[in-house]
């Protein structure tokens, strides 16, 4: 199938290096300590953070750092065919773990000993790149919850189809079976905290694809920072002196 036409446009009209439209909203779950909705095009993810709070399972309590937990799920209505999604299937367990590990890398867990942080992410609309959107939403929610972090984590995916590196694959491109590289970075530190790829790719190609994904992460980061700063300023200005 042709994913990039000779005019250099993708199926949805983007160019190979373009990301989908981003949208973020902070504070969407009133009961949670921090929450956010993050959209990448038609992919929409909601994240809620609870904690740091008392550890529920005493045996997991650690005296020198916080326990981070994550639960990923997909809403039944998130895909075209409304299917009952079993909870805790292999895929969501895996993604939960991926998100947890990625977020753990930036949370200053030692500042919050004997406590636990729960991150819940749910995919409301799935159109490819859910993993990245989940991580971005979780970052926002954590920042909103006032949990100390070394840096924000941002994530973006990139693929390689028709011999062209493509940024931010949507569902159609994602299901083309080509390589799909999901990268998560700490933009300030310029470190990679997540790198996933399910297929094989030539080393040189991989590097360009990864470079592209990293550029995407940086773009996401600047957007997220904008949103966070705007939010912080707003909170401060409302609160008054």
């Amino acid at each position, binding site marked *: 199938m042709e994913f990039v036409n000779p005019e250099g446009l993708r199926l949805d009209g983007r160019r190979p290096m373009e990301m989908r439209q981003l949208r973020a909203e902070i504070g969407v779950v009133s009961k949670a300590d921090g929450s956010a909705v993050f959209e990448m095009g038609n992919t929409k993810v909601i994240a809620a953070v609870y904690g740091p709070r008392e550890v529920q399972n005493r045996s997991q309590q650690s005296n020198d750092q916080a326990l981070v937990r994550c639960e990923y799920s997909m809403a039944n209505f998130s895909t075209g065919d409304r299917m009952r999604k079993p909870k805790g299937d292999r895929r969501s367990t895996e993604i939960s773990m991926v998100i947890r590990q990625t977020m753990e890398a930036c949370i*200053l867990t030692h500042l919050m000993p*004997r406590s636990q942080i729960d991150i819940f992410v749910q995919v409301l609309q799935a159109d490819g790149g859910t993993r990245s959107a989940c991580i971005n939403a979780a970052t926002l929610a954590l920042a909103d919850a006032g949990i100390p972090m070394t840096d924000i984590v941002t994530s973006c995916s990139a693929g390689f189809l028709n011999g062209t590196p493509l940024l931010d694959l949507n569902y159609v491109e994602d299901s083309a079976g080509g390589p799909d590289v999901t990268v998560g970075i700490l933009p300030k530190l310029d470190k990679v905290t997540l790198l996933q790829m399910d297929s094989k790719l030539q080393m040189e190609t991989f590097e360009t694809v990864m470079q592209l994904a990293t550029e995407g992460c940086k773009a996401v980061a600047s957007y997220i920072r904008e949103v966070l700063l705007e939010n912080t300023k707003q909170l401060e200005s409302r*609160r*008054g002196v």
Partner: protein
Amino acid sequence: MRGLQLSLDKGQKLRFERAFEVLESLSSKANSDASVIVADDISVNNEDAILKGHGTAEMNDRLVATLCGVVERVNKLVYVRPLRARYKPEIGDIIIGRVIEVAPKRWKLEINFSQDAVLMLSSMNLPDGIQRRRTAVDELNMRSIFEENGVICAEVRGFQHDGCLHLQARSQKYGKLKRGQLLTIPPYLVKKRKQHFHHLDQYGIDLILGCNGFVWVGEHVDVRDDMVEDLSDKSEKQKVKSWNTLGDEEVEAYTPPDTRQNICRSANAVRVLSTLGFTITVEIITEIVELSKSMDLEVHEMLGAEFYVIVAENEAERRSLPTKRR
């Protein structure tokens, strides 16, 4: 807008925006660019004379924020004051908590901190106010003092060696709260002041603004045990009836409708303010309550869209008056 799930009509939206613009312009005058987010650099002038405070970290020889919030500088100390975050206890803070668990010789309380707080049986005055050794009988009767889910007012005693946060309630003003509403708001909206207990005489209610973001609005307890006075005169021995044994509770169960209305009005005022993200002080609460009364609004109407807009406009107007101090 965050947390605000109201259906506004066009005019209301416009007024809302205008009010917030005013607020924004006011604050940007006051502290320009003090807001930081995670991983933002904090500019420091003379590097060696710095004490890194909360919410900061050193990274590649630069000071960066680890939280979203406002940079505060106190002499050498530089720290980030977080906005939305859980409560950070400081010794002496007056807080309100909810009993989660009754454990041997202690209660565990949820106080919006990263852990549950501990209130030892030994760190509280018993209802009879007698300073004495706690006996095994007292231990067995702990539930008669505080039960699970009970709401309690206490003071932060500090971190013990075991890493737990301990509370104390060694005063008659602390203790079980009843016949009222508990509201939870983000802690950053509660300003730390000398006075956190307020008796709003005109409404016959008590208002406790817990430092941890828990706000209690309840019926004023008996005049004899006036808490406000209690605070000023600690030595005065009071027998607080309401903390008495179970049998009394039924007798005292009745609250006049007027008071109930006032409790609800005040509680709604707190709700409106916290939703709008305005600082919550007793003055503003009373102001809002008065406003609602003057507008002849029913209690439930206070949560309607229109009232939100009016409160926002009111706040904008109030803050723009330079002379008025809260």
